[in-house]
């Protein structure tokens, strides 16, 4: 196996298009890919490491945060604005692995690997972030929900790389439950975001269906910056029904359903009522 670490995007894309399919594996932080390689899953001829590409932006706009694909998650955590402007994202990033792992793992890598247990996918779905995809003909941007096709599957075509993630700054919250606080997989994780005017709420759950997904029926029940208690309770109960809860070695379906209802309720309550996420 050879390791290539191009410094220009064009070289990286040319390498991806060269030779037969499956010849190249793309390496970002490597915290997930290296586990697969260690287990003998896949035998790429070339590891294409993105670490020399200048793709580590962290740029605040009026209503968005733009994050370069290879920015380590810990750099997001270090940003002094994040707690105020996208609180749910800070909480979700803090749930990934442990601190040492977050100095390595990247946002782009998390999305491309599309793990069913990703703690970042639910919050990014709730925030309705967009994914910038770079290919040989330029960059296209698509909503995350369209980017993800299923567990471990995305729309990325051959010769394409995730270049950036554009995240709306919205009042939001994230809640999770697992056996061990760090370096473990959540039994359930829940993300909630709302538009600044309170017109639209969004709920996304993970640890339930094959891949994190929105709970649209439940979220449609919520209106306003501070919905009445009975609507919050109904939305939480609805989300628990809608999520497609399953049993596995980490939790039974009954436990998950109960957990989900509790965590959705807590996350809704935790979304700041004030204008968090607004510019300024």
């Amino acid at each position, binding site marked *: 196996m050879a*390791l290539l670490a191009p410094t220009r995007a064009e070289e990286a894309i040319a390498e991806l298009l060269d030779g037969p399919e499956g010849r190249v594996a793309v390496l970002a932080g490597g915290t997930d890919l290296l586990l697969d390689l260690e287990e003998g899953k896949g035998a790429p001829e070339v590891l294409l*490491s993105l*670490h020399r590409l200048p793709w580590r932006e962290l740029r605040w706009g009026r209503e968005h945060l733009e994050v370069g694909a290879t920015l380590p998650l810990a750099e997001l955590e270090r940003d002094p604005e994040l707690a105020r402007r996208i609180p749910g994202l800070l909480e979700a990033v803090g749930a990934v*692995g*442990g601190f040492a792992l977050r*100095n*390595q793992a990247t946002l782009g890598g998390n999305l491309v690997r599309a793990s069913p247990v990703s703690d970042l996918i639910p919050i990014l779905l709730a925030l309705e972030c967009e994914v910038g995809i770079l290919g040989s003909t330029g960059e296209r941007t698509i909503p995350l929900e369209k980017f993800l096709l299923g567990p471990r599957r995305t729309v990325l075509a051959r010769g394409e790389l995730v270049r950036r993630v554009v995240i709306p700054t919205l009042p939001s919250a994230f809640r999770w439950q697992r056996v061990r606080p*760090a*370096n473990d997989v959540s039994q359930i994780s829940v993300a909630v975001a709302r538009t600044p005017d309170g017109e639209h709420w969004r709920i996304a759950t993970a640890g339930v269906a094959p891949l994190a997904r929105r709970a649209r029926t439940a979220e449609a029940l919520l209106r306003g910056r501070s919905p009445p208690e009975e609507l919050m309770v109904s939305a939480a109960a609805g989300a628990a029904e809608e999520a497609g809860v399953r049993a596995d070695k980490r939790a039974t379906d009954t436990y998950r359903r109960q957990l989900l209802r509790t965590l959705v309720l807590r996350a809704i309550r935790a979304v700041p009522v004030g204008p968090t996420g607004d510019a300024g």
Partner: protein
Amino acid sequence: MTSPLRLLVNGVPVETPVPPSERLLDTLRWRLGLRGTKEGCRTGACGACTVLIGGHPRLSCLTLSHQVGEEPILTVEGLESDPVGRAVMDVFVAEAALQCGYCTPGFVVALTGLLKEHPGASESSLLEGLQGNLCRCTGYSSIRRAVTRLAEPAP
């Protein structure tokens, strides 16, 4: 296939041939003879292999040596000559904050990284920063005592 690799380890420039897919953990232990860094789980779950890269705690079992580049690496062997690392180790010794000692390099390196980045960090934030480190002897109470001494007293 190996290719030459230059690293800066504990202040010393080293050059050694390293296969492209080799983990930093293996390069440190088996090519450079720095066996203080431990292999615990090799899956990023236990923190025993923690080293500092560019001053930040990283898991050497999930880092390819060729990905490190020019960033300085600090392992447990280099803590002696680092004032923060020295202080952390002294407190671990004073509190006997270990049982079998296998996880200790990971704990002291992680704490050194946390304290270098956040001098005067609170006890709770240090404990949170250590969540990724496991002690399989479950000797946590003495480790907690050491952390209490290293933390700033609560305001």
